[in-house]
């Protein structure tokens, strides 16, 4: 029973139906991953300037020269990866820590102005980022004079409202009785957070960490705005610069794109469960 009728008159009818559905799904899946397949396959080509291109969908040979070409483009190309890693790690750690603390406070601790403050944060989620971008740029670059620093890359995203919202949603479902009995035992609020809330919220913290890391790794515009020398750029900004400098080098460009995306693919395939869970945590009420 279910949405589909599983008791068709003939077995072959059901096979035919499921086969048809599977065919459509697979065709669509192929179309979805084709660009990524194309990117990886093409990155193994030779680093020659593309005149009249002939694209190979099945590589005749595998060469890593294009990767070498990409890394040779700038002596800072390895630094880009490192910068991305530093930025993403710092933002992830601080988000997990501060968003979960705030989420706990907003869901379980009574204090004056709690609802008002939380409502304010929610309203802020509605504001398009274009509104804050210009003043933020002026603040960081013109007032604090922080361009080309890790602080400029990291500070604005130290803790995002979305993550606070996510952890608050999750922690609301933790039963109050546990917290009260911990209080009876003489725990203070930080001990409760550290010994009870944090262990119980491992899943949501993992989801938060992964999504934040991925978003930060993939972010382009903010690093692009606040960095102006190659040694401070992230891999995404570096890739964009490479693209503009070498418009005809097809295979090296694909190698660069692969380099920028590969860490996330590895992360995705090793922590798939959390990624897929993470998508629904914020969306489905509960």
């Amino acid at each position, binding site marked *: 029973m279910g949405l589909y009728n599983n008791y068709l008159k003939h077995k072959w009818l059901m096979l035919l139906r499921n086969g048809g559905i599977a065919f459509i799904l697979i065709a669509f*899946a192929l179309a979805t991953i084709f660009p990524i397949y194309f990117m990886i396959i093409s990155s193994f080509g030779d680093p020659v300037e593309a005149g009249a291109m002939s694209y190979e969908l099945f590589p005749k040979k595998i060469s890593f020269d294009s990767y070498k070409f990409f890394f040779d483009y700038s002596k800072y190309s390895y630094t880009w990866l490192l910068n991305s890693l530093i930025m993403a790690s710092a933002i992830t750690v601080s988000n997990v820590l501060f968003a979960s603390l705030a989420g706990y406070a907003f869901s379980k601790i009574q204090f004056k102005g709690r609802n008002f403050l939380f409502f304010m944060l929610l309203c802020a989620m509605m504001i398009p980022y274009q*509104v804050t971008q*210009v003043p933020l740029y002026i603040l960081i670059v013109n007032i604090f004079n922080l361009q080309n620093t890790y602080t400029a890359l990291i500070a604005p995203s130290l803790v995002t409202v979305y993550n606070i919202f996510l952890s608050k949603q999750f922690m609301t479902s933790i039963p109050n009785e546990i917290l009260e009995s911990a209080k009876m035992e003489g725990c203070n609020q930080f001990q409760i*957070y550290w010994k009870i809330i944090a262990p119980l919220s491992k899943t949501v913290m993992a989801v938060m960490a992964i999504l934040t890391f991925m978003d930060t790794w993939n972010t382009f515009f903010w690093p692009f705005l606040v960095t102006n020398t190659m040694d401070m750029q992230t891999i995404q900004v570096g890739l964009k610069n490479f693209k503009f400098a070498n418009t005809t080098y097809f295979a090296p460009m694909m190698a660069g794109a692969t380099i920028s995306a590969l860490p996330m693919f590895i992360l995705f395939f090793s922590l798939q469960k959390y990624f897929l869970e993470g998508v629904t945590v914020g969306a489905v009420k509960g």
Partner: protein
Amino acid sequence: MIQTVKPSTKKRKIKGDSVWGYTFIAVALLVFAMFTAYPVVSAFIISFQEYKPLGSTWVGLENYKDTFASELFWKSIKNTVIYTILTVPFALFISFAVAIMIIPFKKWLQTTFKAVYYLPAVASGVALSVVWLWIYDPMKSGIFNKVIGLFGIENQNWLGSSATAMLSLVIMSWLSSHGTSIIIYLAALLGIDNSYYEAAELDGANFFHKLWYIVIPFLKPTTLFLLVTGIIGSFQVFQNAYLMTGGGPDHATTMVGLLIFNNAFTYFEFGQASAQSLILAVIIAVISLIQFKFLGNDVEY
């Protein structure tokens, strides 16, 4: 005796707790105040000024007047609306259909499909735009030209001609941004209790009856959520346009987000950009309100 003691300890406990409460949200609040609240207020002020690093001049409503008088602004609004209409409802429909089709399969197959559909969301926008740039190679040998060649369509200068540039961005979005909504739809679908279908079957309902009378009403909150977030997101989108077409040719792909970005960081017209971003914020707020009004009577978050 007990009764007199209890309230006082309770009071003290709450008082102690609120200190903890404020401590726990301190960093979050500080970051919020500095990097969100202050910029919003500041954006209002800047929008009434002509910004100069050393002393801006007050120009009143000039920036707003200029914006409303600018042809390019209206064109960018039009482009944004077209892009949104072509991408958001279509993506929702695809995601819904795919989610429905995934349901009859076994758990591991469902997960595999979910993972594959989600994969483009994992890759960075810059990487994807680099790849799609080559897929849209205008030469005869370009991948996309070969594909449409199979259907007997002549090769096109996809990103280079104003007739097809927008369509190119739309197709790219169709094929790379449905993963999230498929997963969300699927989760909602799995949340529908089987007893509803069983009851419907007893009444002789077929697949389409069940789809129409059970699934669609049940998924209405999900659809509304995806629609609202999709439209809000789509109105701010400009990364692909920026990286692939730069808003051209002939401003055919200049969306509001890109216009604001260019005004701010290419021409350094901070005042103008702030005014436009606030107009964008108002438009987004109005659209969201309308959607909630018409679709959201029974939706709770």
